[in-house]
């Protein structure tokens, strides 16, 4: 290609940059980089700095040292509740969503008719505005006139079983499951579609070989399908966990964080601190705690993946 191929180092140095492209490259980068600096990089640093101050936007900021963090960790009962709620959502939503998504994908991957129409229906909630979805579910869960409660009353009347519909949104024990159901309805289609793509990449020979060896459908799932899609499972686990950490709109619209703060989440708490109580510093501290949690959890999952994620030889990792 070039005359300097004889000297490896000069080629690589030449490749690294070209003086004539220097300024040109900076021009190409300028719009993106200016935005990146102003709306991402500087705010990240500013938010960290802010978390060491108390500031209500009216009086000048006061330096508070680590007080915002120490208050959160030792003195803030609501924050403890908030953390508990968020972890509750993570440990329920993530596994259920993966299980349902994989189940649906396996079902749709059987070479049946109607794949497109099923996909259309199951994916529909994914494109739905969450505010509208949360409103409908609030009405759906209504104890007196909601359709879910009515179905349960009917079932009780038909079978004579002593069951009563829970007061979903006014009972602290039931509000969380209500949020979980809304989230599953909203997001399972996404998980399903990603799994479907992964399943379609599994070579059919593997199933044929397993069949020849007399593997049952369950064994074929357990020893062929599951390991083959494990990189996808890992990917989905990480992004769904990050998503569950950031749960906000569902609770904000459907339950307003209640009853008795049963559905108050970390992001909801940031919102409350900053925009309802005007405590910018405390809000920033909560945001940093969120970031640290996400960082640690992602790191742990990445470490643990070696034990169970199966990568094809030569495949990307």
């Amino acid at each position, binding site marked *: 290609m070039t005359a300097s191929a004889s000297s490896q180092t000069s080629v690589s140095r030449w490749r*690294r*940059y*070209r003086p004539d*492209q220097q300024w*040109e*490259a*900076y021009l*190409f*980068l300028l*719009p*993106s980089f200016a*935005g*990146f600096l102003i*709306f991402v*990089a500087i*705010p*990240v640093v500013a*938010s960290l700095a*802010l978390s060491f101050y108390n500031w209500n936007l009216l009086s000048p900021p006061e330096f508070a040292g680590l007080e915002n963090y120490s208050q959160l960790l030792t003195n803030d009962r609501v924050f403890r509740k908030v953390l508990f709620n968020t972890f509750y959502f993570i440990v329920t939503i993530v596994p259920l969503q993966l299980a349902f998504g994989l189940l649906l994908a396996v*079902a749709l991957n*059987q*070479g*049946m*008719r109607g794949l*497109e129409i*099923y996909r*259309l229906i199951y*994916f*529909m909630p*994914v*494109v*739905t*505005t969450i*505010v509208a*979805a949360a*409103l*409908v579910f609030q*009405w*759906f869960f209504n104890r007196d006139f909601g*359709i879910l409660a*009515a179905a349960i009353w009917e079932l009780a009347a038909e079978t004579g079983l002593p069951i009563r519909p829970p007061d979903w949104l006014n009972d602290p024990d039931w509000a969380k499951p209500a949020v979980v159901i809304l989230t599953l*309805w909203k997001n399972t*289609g*996404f998980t399903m*579609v*990603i799994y479907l793509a992964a399943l379609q990449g599994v070579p059919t020979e593997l199933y044929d070989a397993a069949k020849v060896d007399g593997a049952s459908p369950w064994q074929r799932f357990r020893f062929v399908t599951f390991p083959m899609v494990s990189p996808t499972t890992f*990917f989905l686990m990480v992004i769904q966990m990050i998503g569950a950490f*950031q749960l906000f*709109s569902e609770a*904000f619209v459907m339950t307003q964080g209640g009853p008795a703060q049963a559905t108050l989440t970390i*992001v909801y708490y*940031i919102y409350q601190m*900053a*925009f309802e109580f005007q405590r*910018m510093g405390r809000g*920033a501290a909560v*945001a940093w705690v969120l*970031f640290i949690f*996400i960082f640690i959890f*992602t790191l742990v999952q990445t470490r643990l993946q070696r034990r169970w994620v199966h990568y094809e030889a030569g495949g990307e990792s």
Partner: protein
Amino acid sequence: MRPEAAPGATFNKGHLLLHAALILGSVGMLLPFGWMLATSLKSPPQIFTYPPSLVPNPVVWRNYLDTVQAMPFGRFYLNSLFVAVSVTTLQILTSSLAAFAFARLRFRGREALFLVYLATLMIPFHVTMIPNFILVRYLRWFDTFYALIVPTAFSVFAVFLLRQYFRGIPVEMDEAARMDGASSFRIWAQVIMPLSGPVLAALTIFVFLGSWNDFLWPLVVSNSNATRTIPVGLATFRGQYNTDWHLLMAGSVIALLPVLLVYVFAQKRFVEGITLSGMGGR
């Protein structure tokens, strides 16, 4: 993707059971939509009767008129459309220019700068939200379209996604153009961008839908109907008509209809766009 089962594909008992289960699941997925639509067409007495019915009788179309008279949903549509189109255009423009530099131009500090970009990919938006809010107030952008559009017109993720794709385009393509004396800008505009149709389409759908449905940031920076987007407008509507479920459901239908219609007719593109972008371009 595996093609649809061929006509005359095997139809066995197992499939029948599977269909039954999938249809049951579909009913569950569609029920909230049906319940929304039914309620939006009922009169208040019909809404508060037991047992509830999925069939409104009589059908009260007036609810929709009352809804748009109570809340300027037309205005919210325009706001959402304006914001989503601007954000999508700007994000793709700024990101594709930067991605081109990262993928194709050789300049000092390229790898280091890209690493700085990547490092922020993991930081949740909520960390930068409060400083951005303070900045928006300082610039006197609060409750303006600037606040809704400008901070979201840049995306590290889009830069990353496009760079990956651009690197997959054979270098010979732009080297040939360069031989012919094309400038870098022309190579970006006339070689790289036209060859990136699929990823640009996917990204457009992803960014547009994300902006159209975005809730938290618009909630924080808009404070009047002049700037409220559909989701924030709907939430405001709920705040004012707390128990008027016929109106709230009509408002929800109005909010959902355009996206769902486009989705039904362009299902494949939507699914591709969301999965490709959702997977980070893998």
